[in-house]
């Protein structure tokens, strides 16, 4: 997850991440997810939390630029997806 800016990390919020998995997403004009493919089925997105953005590691030659979305699909638990702005791909971020 994204680090706090200029502050000490609040360890209560730290969660371990699983390796992100590629996912298909349909978006609105402003980039907000409208539908997401979970398994073989497409699901409508019923609500989306305000996205957050990370833009880091530019000095490594492989910058990380992502917009993260917490969303609720029509059927199932909330999901965290991110849009990789460098490769223009969508990933599902899961937590252990």
């Amino acid at each position, binding site marked *: *997850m*994204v*680090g*706090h*800016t*200029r*502050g000490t*990390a*609040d360890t209560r919020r730290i969660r371990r991440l699983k390796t992100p998995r590629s996912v298909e997403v349909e978006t609105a004009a402003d980039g907000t997810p409208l539908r997401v493919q979970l398994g073989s089925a497409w699901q409508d997105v019923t609500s989306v*939390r*305000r*996205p*957050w*953005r*990370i*833009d*880091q590691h*530019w*000095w490594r*030659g492989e910058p990380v630029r992502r*917009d*993260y979305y917490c969303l609720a699909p029509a059927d199932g638990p909330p999901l965290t997806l991110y849009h990789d702005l460098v490769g223009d791909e969508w990933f599902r971020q899961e937590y252990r």
Partner: protein
Amino acid sequence: MTYVELHCHSCFSLREGASTPLELVLRAGELGYTALALTDHDSLAGAMQFAQAAKAWEVQAVIGAEVTLSDGAHLTLLCETPRGYANLSRLLTRANLTSPRGEPRVRFEWLIEHAEGLIALSGCRKGEVAALAERGELRAAGEAASRYRDVFGSEGYFVELQENLVYEDLPRNEGLVALARDLGLGIVATNNVHYHLQERHRLHDVLVAVRHHTNLEEARPHLRANAEFYLKPPQEMERLFSDLPEAITNTARIAERCRGFDLTRDLGYVFPDYDSGNGRSADEFLRDLCYEKAREHYRSPLPEQVEIRMLKELDLIKSSKRAGFFLRLWDLLRFAHERQMPVRGRGSSVGSLVCFLLGLSGIDPIKYDLAVERFLNEARPDSDVPDIDLDFGREARAEMFRHIFETYTTERAAMVCNFIEYRSASAIRDVGKALGLPEGQIDKIAKRMHSRFAGGLEDELAAMPEFAARMKFPIWQDFLRLVNELRGMPRHLSQHSGGVIISSTRMDEQVPVEATAMPNRFICQWDKDSVADAGFIKLDLLGYPSLDQLERGLRYVEQRHGRLIKPKDIDLTDPEVYAMIQRGDTLGIVQIQSRAQIQVLLRIKVARIEDLIIQVALIRPGPIQGGAVHPYIARCLGQEPVTYDHPSLEPALKETKGVFVFQEQVIQAAMAIAGFTSGKAEQLRRAMSRKRSREAMEALRDEFFAGAAANGVDASTAATIYDKIVAFSSFGFPKSHAAAMAVTAYHIAWLKRYYPAEFYCALLNEQPMGFYSPEVIANDARRHDIAVLGLDVNQSGVECNIEETESGDAVRLGYRYVKGLGDAAWKHLEEEGKAGPYRSLWDFWRRTHLGREAIEHLIQVGAFAWTGLHERELLWQLGTFYQPLDAQMPLPVSQAETLPALRVLSDKEQIVTDLTLTGIAVRGRSMDLIADQLHEGITPSRLVNHMQAGQRVTVAGLVAVRQSPETAKGFVFHTLEDYDGLINVITAPRLIPKFRRLIESAPALIVHGHIERQERSVNVIAERFEALPVASTAGGRVHSFG
């Protein structure tokens, strides 16, 4: 609905903000902002720059700061009224003066005292309220917000919401909005701007890494999550806060309220008036004082021209209400004069008769026909005050600072600050380290860019084979871009060389004041430009070691010859002194000792002080760039006729044969050609001399051409004259300044001519003072039959002193010249020396208790030669004095019989030792170190001076001075020294790539070339260089100048 950014950092938030105030203002203008705040961390250093830029670009400047409270929490404060600004300035001053240096902290209780006129925003994520809200501690956050509300009032305290697309923003803002609703507080959106364009976020990250002394990888916990902290378009901010429109409208409301304070208008600075104490006004007192002094100097009745000039100046002073200013200065200078401090005026104030009469300058402007307009004129607005520049000896200057701060205290006085900017080398090192580039490579690049011959970074890297291929890699591309972005930004705050501001109102309400590393010295957060923009009167108290040199030399004359001489008593018409100057025998004489000055001295005949005044002003970047030097010399020599670009210039330029040499001539020319008033002409001159005044200059240019046309001057002639004025620009002397400099130069020349031993002794005791190394000075002394004697513990004092020897006067080196001693050792040696001569090394060791290394150095430089033992024997003997703790104490018996056979130091070893430990080869000549490497065909300097133009020549010598001034268009000038004297070598830029290492750093050179001769001035034009290896310590004698 118009968003105004109220939380914005510039590069004056050091090692954090990545854009200059000007960049922020320009971007704000582009984006359509009507107002913009500047809220640097704990600083108003960029505030005046910001306010001036904003005014020019018609953006309202909201002045504020993000202060750090005792617990580290941030709070954004904005100035609503002049009182609010004064309070903010006092808060920052108080924080700076009571906290560890560089970590100012504001105590909460101080906010209560200084809340009036300030609007507080709850702050960024590090604000107390925001941090509590982010942690979910809403109750505590509410209590904290209530405390701030109680201090600033509900109309003066707003809850700040920042939406930078960071994960925590949403919950924190939700909590803050709820809290604000509960407490009935307003909310306000800000973007916590740290750079004007999004792409600058990389530089911001680099600066954060620099702040934490690490690289970006290690600095990750401290870096921001994304690049959203830029000055966003107002529409973008309105979109982000579309669900909270009140947060947007409040920004505009707050900005509107802050119109009550304009930093460019409302500072309310007043220079202290002068209370004469007898009911007379300052104007009356000043007039009476001037009459009294004038009668003392000129006798009664006063010459008409004196009275007319004095009354004119007094009128100008009265109309601009500056009598108190002059009287305050007179009062300060009385302190100096009563203590017989070496002090002298410099700059344009020397042209003022009032300044002369008050003792602020030492030059009679009537006698030397010095104009006052550059200093005082009718068009100078009251807010535009003249600077007074004063030169002091080093100790006198420190004493004056003490006196000023004792008299005015930190509440009324402060020194002007100077922002040390990132230069190429420092930017390369910081960016390179942040990017994690190999240290060795960065060091290599930095050193190369530090070179006087360095071009642009990209070109230099391309010229380095090991880097050229890397430039295509992204990391090196980043490196290049970031270094270029960082260069020129402030790195840290430092002291200006001598600027002091004094105020009758509290200084700490005008600008924050900080302590310096030096006790009892305090600096304000503004540099000289901001101070000038603020309309502060600045006194420049500059250190001028040549005054010490002269004062010291005259003191020696009095001590040795019983002749008390004051500088003002020295005859300025002595032909013997001018004859020496005409020979170019001016080494050690300030202003006329450089290679370029001597070259001109050899060509034109300086026979009067008026000639010397021109000479001093001629070799300056202004006249050089203005193309004045060669025409002036040619006209002096009768090689070309004296002409004027327009007949109306003759009165102004007659004295200097039709060319611009003095700043006053620019003013006079503008008056003659364009019909400018003296005030308008001075505005033109000033506009050309300042970095920030392009627009002002353009406007004046149009006026100049219009005025010239109205005066019947054709456009082509007007353009020629205007171009010369522009080329002359700022880097010329006013005649008044040149006169002050020339008179001091003459005084020192007089000392050299008639009292050379005193001259060289004073000069060596005042080192370091710039141009030539002590070794080169010592060689010049020898050429004037003044021997330089080495250290001798039974003859030397702490300072050099003069001895009479059978062969004439000599200068004996003092202990100050020996490395490894220090204040304590000097004091001890001085005291112990009074107890009689030392009888042996043992006696010295026993009596002085100096450290072993110090005694070893004294032995090595021959200070014990009188014992009959050589250096190695003495070192061996010294070693026997140091015994294990439990050993029997050594007995003071002669140990000569027990000495082992030790080899005597060779001549070269002695020279190297002398150079290493004292900087002066006393036992031999530095040239001895290279003599055996000189091959056939090398011409010594005494013969070079007799060679004809075009003759081929090979010369060799130690490099005394290396220069490559900016005005020289890439040419490099070496002054080589051989056994007989100095040789000038000129190197064209085309040779630099091939011989760069030798040209740049060799301590000795063989140069093949040909002779260039102009009258008596001889140069060697270099064609090829040969290395001349020499012990590395000899390199320390080279003085290099840009």
